[in-house]
C-alpha cells in the first residue's frame, strides 16, 4: 500500500466539521452508510456474499478442502481466513506480497470469527485422525472507500452462514449446509476530527487517526479487539464505543439473520 500524503487541509476540514458534530458526507457521528448484503453470488464458491457499504464493495467466498487433522486434535477440522486487497480496490493499493495493512485486515477478521466459536470444528471431522474439512474463507475487496474491516467481517459471516459442505464432489457423503452456532459481528471506529466516528469513509480514514475494531457475539460477549494506527485513547472513549457496538452489532445481526 502506498502511503498517501495526508492532506493538512482535509484534516483541518474534518476538524471543523467535527466541532459542529458534522461529517464530510453529512452523516451523524454514529451513523453507518447505506448497506447492501447479498449471499450466494459466486457460482464456483460453496458459500459467498457481496457486501456494499456506501462505495466500499467486497466479496467473501467459502471453499472447502480435505485436510488431515493435526495429531493432537484428531477429531477437528480447521478454518483458514485470508484477506486480499489487490490494486483493483483503489489507487493506493499496490500489487506484490501482502502488505502489513492487508495482513492485519485478514487476521483481525479471522480472530473475530474463530474466537467466537461459531464454527464447531469437531463437526468438520470426516474420519478421525485421517480426514476433516478445512473451511477456507477468502475476503476480496473490489472497491475501497473506507472501513474494509466491517465490510469483510460482514461478508465473511454471511458467506459462512450460506455455505454448503461439498461432500458429494469429494465423494465422502452427501452435501449438507455448514452450521454456525453464533453470529459474531464487527464494528469499527475511527478517530476523525478528534473524536471517534462509526464506519469511516475513505476520506475520513485518510484524514483521521487511530481506529478500534470490536467483534461481539450474540450475547454481547467480546471475541476480538484491535487498536490500529498511531493514536492515544482514553478508557472513557473506549466505553462509549463499546456501548455503541453492543447496539449496532444487534442491528446488523438481525439484518443478516
Amino acid at each position, binding site marked *: 500500500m502506498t502511503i498517501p500524503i495526508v492532506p493538512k487541509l482535509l484534516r483541518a476540514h474534518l476538524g471543523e466539521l467535527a466541532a459542529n458534530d458534522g461529517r464530510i458526507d453529512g452523516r451523524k457521528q454514529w451513523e453507518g452508510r447505506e448497506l447492501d448484503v447479498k449471499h450466494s453470488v459466486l457460482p464456483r464458491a460453496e458459500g459467498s456474499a457481496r457486501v456494499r457499504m456506501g462505495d466500499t464493495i467486497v*466479496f467473501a467466498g467459502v*471453499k472447502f478442502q480435505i485436510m488431515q487433522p493435526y495429531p493432537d486434535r484428531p477429531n477437528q477440522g480447521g478454518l483458514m481466513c485470508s484477506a486480499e486487497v489487490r490494486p483493483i480496490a483503489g489507487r493506493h493499493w499496490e500489487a506484490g506480497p501482502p502488505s502489513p495493512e492487508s495482513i492485519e485486515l485478514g487476521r483481525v477478521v479471522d480472530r473475530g470469527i474463530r474466537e467466537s466459536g461459531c464454527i464447531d470444528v469437531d463437526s468438520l471431522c470426516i474420519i478421525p485422525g485421517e480426514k476433516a474439512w478445512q473451511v477456507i474463507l477468502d475476503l476480496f475487496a473490489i472497491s475501497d472507500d473506507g472501513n474494509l474491516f466491517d465490510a469483510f467481517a460482514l461478508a465473511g459471516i454471511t458467506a459462512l452462514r450460506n455455505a454448503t459442505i461439498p461432500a458429494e464432489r469429494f465423494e465422502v457423503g452427501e452435501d449438507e449446509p455448514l452450521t454456525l452456532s453464533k453470529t459474531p459481528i464487527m464494528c469499527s471506529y475511527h478517530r476523525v476530527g478528534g473524536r471517534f466516528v462509526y464506519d469511516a469513509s475513505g476520506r475520513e480514514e485518510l484524514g483521521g487517526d487511530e481506529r478500534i475494531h470490536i467483534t461481539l457475539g450474540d450475547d454481547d460477549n467480546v471475541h476480538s479487539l484491535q487498536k490500529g494506527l498511531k493514536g492515544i485513547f482514553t478508557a472513557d472513549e473506549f466505553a462509549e464505543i463499546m456501548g455503541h457496538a453492543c447496539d449496532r452489532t444487534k442491528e446488523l445481526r438481525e439484518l443478516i439473520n
Partner: protein
Amino acid sequence: MGGYGDVQMIDENGLRVDGRGPGDLREITIETGVVPVADGSCRMTWGTNEAIVAVYGPMEAHPRKIQRQDRAVLDVAYNMAPFSTTDRMRPGFNRRSREISKVTKDALESVVLLELYPRSKIRISIEIVSAEAGTRCVGLTAASVALADAGIPMTDMVVSVASGKINDIVVCDLNKEEDNYGEADLPMGILPNSGELVFLQMDGDLSQEEFKQAWDYNMDAAQAVHEMMVEALKGGGSQ
C-alpha cells in the same frame, strides 16, 4: 486441451450440451461503473464467467524507470480470485496469469492512444471472480469497456472471443464441459471496425480447414459482442 475424445458432446441434431448451435455464444451481460472509486470500470458476465475490471489513470508512472518519455505505459494485471474456480486458486505468483497479463497488455497497447500521455501510467486490474472457460477473452473484452468508461481514447475497442473443437467439430465459444473435453481452443482479439487482430493464441490440434472455420466463427461473434459493448456504454447496462 483435455482431449478425451470418446465423450459425446454434440447430439444428433448438431446441438451442444447446453442447447447451443455450433456458432452460438453463451449469454453475456455488460455493466459499467461497478467500481465506484475507479476512473472507469466494467463487470462482464459470460456464461458463468464473471470479470470485474477497474481502470485507474492516467497517473504518474513510478518507479521512474518504467516511465517512457514519449508515451504512457499500461500496467495490466489479470488475476483469478481464490473462489473463482472449483478447486480453490491459491493467491500468489502464477505463470499462467503472468502470461495472460502480458498478452492482454500487448493487445490493449495496440489500441490505446498512448502518445497522448507521455511519462504516465494507466493501471488496468482484471479480476476473474467466477471462471468458466474463456476467462482471458472475457477479461480483455471487459478491459476495453472499462477503458472506454474511463474516457481513455482508443482507435477501436478490442473484442475477444474463442472458438474451438469438440468431437472433431469446430464450435464457437466453448463452455466449461466442452473445454474439459475439447481438442483445440483459438482465442482472438479483434478490432470490430477493421477486422484486424491485436491478440491471438491457440493450442490443441486444428487442420488448416478447421482453423479457417474457427477463425470465421470468431470474426462473426466479435461483431455480435461489439454491439452489446456499445449498448452498455450508451445505456449503462446491456441485459
